[in-house]
């Protein structure tokens, strides 16, 4: 089979390759890439490797490393969002003047998710003051993100954004007052779109609409694209929204060769618009469709086990000891969650000391809290085992280095009139000057509090009883620090400010970031984030730079700005255990030997998020407009999600799943969600069969 498959993949044809996770599909994609690069003769021919998210590019990058002799070919590994952004930027002169922008001959400003939310906030805040959204109980950040999400859904699914409210409203079966909220949401997105057109701002939804509606139909653009790319390899098509499939299907005939790869039991990002059903169209477009299946006994048993957990009525095809050999539970009953984390840490330690590689172990949970990371990390550290976390939605403000930088920005800009917590100043001061301890830092901030000046006191102004407690070196450092703040007051371009702060003060000998390698990359994150924030204001909006900087600092403090930077180093750290939310792990597309599942009683394993302003299914292409969303739909969706998740996790586990369950969950509740109930049923049935035998 492999030889035949290999032959098919080493030819100029158009193939649809599908199968379950870890059946070797991406491996064949890489083989195809190497073939195209190494074997093809003649004129240079570009290859587009399209992946649904950045992290999925790694296998293809690794494959490129192994190619030694390519000369004439070019490879671009891109996500569709990346391609869209680049092309809209390059071809802006051809489309700007026909797309309703007020200043089409000026360069546009591209918005990130965070900056889109920021601008949405500017639209929505006055509305909230007028009483809009009054019946919705949501944090401001979640309200903004759902509004932005609505616009994005309209663009990637392919319906007018002006119909968002109507679609949501028509599907609603609850109280009438909710329909008023959908009207409010529609008004907000309408105003946001108008604002973007007035100010040359391109949020994600506008980028996609310009690409689909104006660029894709432009002959100069199509000619350019066809010159760039002759071959296509498209992996994890099921995780992309339908507009990507529309584009690729339309482009299909122009490719000399194409390979589309789909994971059968996936579509994990359906809440973001992923549409496996839409992706499956390539099966009929392709010359050949190949199904890959892992036919080992082990794989068969895992498939069966997942299916039996989901379906109570399915006859058992395995024995209790088969379940125990794959699914492990704590030996003793665990009542509380911290106790459970200790137990997990002990079990992991035993495995690592027994020779298991840390990168073969993952700890997953529907949501991963700071306290879980801290406690588990602390327990593992006792045995010299590192823990690394991957949480895509982490806020910038959660990083201590960033807290330090932001605090310095506030201290150097008293005109912002932002309040500062004295305990925070104390800890930042101790962090910035390692010579200081918390006690000395506290003495200074206590004095600062008493003067109510909002600024760090000058060394000469410190009462003698405090300055006497500082040695000469401490005094010297403190003086340098306060002098630096004085000299840099009024530097309103915060990227410049942070860069100076880092280079001239904090990374200098005697200060907290010196030789602290992590501080460099974290500071770079913050600088990049500010640059994007500033760039989004372009040249069109007249704004006071000091106000702009203040807005940024407030946005970081409120948690609006996320640390979306891809940290390649941490991803490659093979000497640490990974802890990550379930969906993030599934998105990584990596198999491990051991999985530890936390909070298994939680409904977060399968339930859609509570989103009162949007709806991933109602705003999807498969939804019949006018149909009502009922409790039955929710139940069906939960079951489908649980099935997908179970299959996905089992396929990505080579040896053992550890169900880390405690009587009381992390939130102190006795939770018994579907996952717990189904797994308990499986054990009961297997036990009964054993007893019957």
């Amino acid at each position, binding site marked *: 089979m492999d030889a035949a498959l290999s032959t098919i993949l080493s030819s100029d044809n158009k193939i649809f390759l599908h199968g379950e996770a870890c059946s070797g599909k991406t491996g064949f994609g890489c083989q195809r890439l190497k073939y195209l690069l190494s074997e093809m003769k003649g004129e240079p021919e570009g290859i587009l490797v399209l992946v649904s998210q950045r992290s999925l590019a790694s296998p293809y990058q690794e494959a490129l*490393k192994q190619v030694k002799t390519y000369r004439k070919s070019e490879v671009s590994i891109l996500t569709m969002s990346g391609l869209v952004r680049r092309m809209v930027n390059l071809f802006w002169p051809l489309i700007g003047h026909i797309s309703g922008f007020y200043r089409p001959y000026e*360069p546009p400003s591209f918005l990130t998710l965070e900056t889109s939310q920021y601008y949405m906030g500017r639209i929505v805040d006055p509305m909230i003051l007028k009483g809009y959204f009054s019946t919705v109980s949501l944090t401001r950040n979640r309200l903004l993100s759902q509004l932005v999400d609505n616009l994005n859904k309209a663009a990637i699914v392919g319906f007018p954004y002006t119909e968002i409210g109507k679609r949501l409203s028509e599907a609603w079966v609850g109280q009438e007052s909710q329909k008023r909220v959908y009207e409010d949401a529609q008004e907000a997105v309408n105003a946001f779109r108008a604002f973007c057109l007035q100010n040359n701002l391109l949020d994600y939804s506008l980028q996609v609409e310009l690409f689909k509606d104006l660029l894709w139909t432009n002959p100069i653009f199509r000619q350019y694209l066809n010159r760039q790319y002759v071959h296509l390899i498209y992996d994890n098509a099921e995780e992309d929204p339908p507009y990507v499939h529309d584009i690729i299907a339309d482009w299909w005939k122009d490719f000399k060769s194409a390979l589309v790869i789909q994971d059968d039991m996936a579509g994990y990002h359906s809440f973001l618009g992923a549409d496996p059903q839409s992706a499956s169209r390539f099966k009929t477009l392709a010359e050949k469709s190949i199904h890959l299946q892992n036919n080992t006994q082990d794989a068969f048993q895992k498939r069966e086990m997942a299916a039996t957990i989901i379906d109570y009525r399915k006859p058992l095809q395995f024995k209790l000891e088969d379940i125990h050999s794959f699914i492990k539970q704590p030996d003793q009953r665990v009542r509380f969650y911290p106790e459970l984390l200790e137990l997990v840490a002990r079990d992991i330690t035993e495995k690592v000391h027994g020779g298991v590689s840390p990168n073969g172990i993952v700890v997953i949970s529907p949501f991963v809290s700071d306290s879980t990371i801290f406690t588990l990390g602390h327990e593992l550290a006792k045995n010299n085992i590192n823990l690394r976390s991957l949480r895509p939605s982490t806020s910038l403000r959660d990083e201590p280095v960033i807290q330090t930088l932001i605090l310095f920005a506030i201290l150097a800009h008293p005109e912002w009139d932002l309040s500062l917590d004295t305990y925070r100043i104390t800890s930042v001061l101790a962090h910035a000057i390692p010579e200081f301890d918390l006690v000395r830092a506290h003495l200074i901030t206590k004095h600062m509090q008493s003067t109510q000046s909002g600024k760090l006191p000058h060394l000469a102004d410190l009462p003698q009883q405090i300055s006497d407690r500082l040695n000469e070196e401490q005094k010297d450092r403190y003086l340098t620090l306060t002098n630096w703040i004085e000299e840099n007051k009024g530097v309103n371009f915060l990227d410049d400010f942070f*860069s100076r702060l880092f280079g001239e003060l904090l*990374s200098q000998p005697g200060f907290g970031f010196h*030789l602290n390698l992590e501080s460099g990359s974290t500071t770079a994150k913050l*600088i990049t984030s500010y640059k994007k924030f500033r760039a989004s204001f372009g040249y069109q909006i007249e704004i006071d730079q000091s106000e702009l900087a203040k807005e940024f600092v407030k946005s970081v403090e409120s948690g609006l700005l996320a640390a979306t930077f891809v940290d390649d180093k941490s991803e490659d750290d093979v000497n640490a255990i990974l802890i990550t939310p379930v969906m993030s792990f599934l998105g990584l597309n990596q198999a491990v030997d051991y999985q530890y599942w936390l909070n298994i009683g939680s409904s977060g394993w399968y339930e859609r998020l509570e989103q009162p302003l949007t709806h991933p299914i109602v705003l999807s292409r498969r939804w019949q407009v006018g149909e009502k969303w009922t409790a039955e739909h929710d139940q069906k969706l939960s079951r489908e999600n649980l099935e997908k998740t179970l299959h996905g996790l089992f396929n990505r586990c080579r040896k053992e799943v550890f169900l880390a369950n405690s009587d009381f969950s992390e939130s102190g509740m006795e939770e018994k969600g579907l996952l717990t109930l189904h797994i308990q049923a499986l054990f009961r049935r297997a036990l009964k069969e054993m007893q019957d035998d």
Partner: protein
Amino acid sequence: MKTNIPADFSFSQSNLHTYLRCRYKFYLRYIQGLLWPAQLTSDALVYEEDRNAGIRFHQLLHQYFIGFDQDLLVQMAQNDPDPRVLEWFSSFLLSPFAQLDGELNPEKTLNANIDGKLFTIKMDLLQFVDGLYHIYDWKTSRKIPSRKTLLESVQTKLYPLVLSEALSSNFPIHFHILELNQVDAPITFTFSAPEVAKSRDYFMLLTDEILALEEHEFFRTDKLQICKTCEYRSHCNRGIKAPGISDLELLDMEDYLETGNLNTDLV
């Protein structure tokens, strides 16, 4: 201990230039991957404006060579927030470089595997006409470098070599440099096959040396002047403040002209 440079490491104009200026900086940036975001110049905003104006001008030329309507591009240049972009574009349109024929490939990236080592270049424009290749490079320098400086730069020697290897060309290669702040004096270098072979020897020796170094042999430069414009100055305890933009030369900035890695274009 021998340093492990990744097997897929691709040598480029900027990383080779970095190595020639300071081995330790090369080590920190390309082997350790250490981000150290200190200022390059105290006039960071002026530097950023220069850089952004240069990027937008390069994009205009990219669009011009794709075949966009010239009047439309002039309109874009007229509306650019930086008036220099219009000046540069107008100068370009009056130059013979606006009338090129043959096969034109703007923003062309090429990779070559030379004796088992990967090299990457990114050209502003590659022209193939009458059986010969021409490389074009647009510069918008504040301080115009001399012909000698340009001839000795890594870029000028590396580009013809990678092109001849990647496209198997043994014919002379022309390298044209148009300095937009001095359009009446474009510079052209022609590299014959023996000259390209000489560059080949040079870069093979240089890259062999890099790959053979032990970790401790990536020592810091002894030219402290170079440290002034290096972001790692605080890491090496070699200075506090960055210099003004007027103190920077082309060579100081060539480090920062990254050409990407392996022509992969991940977004």
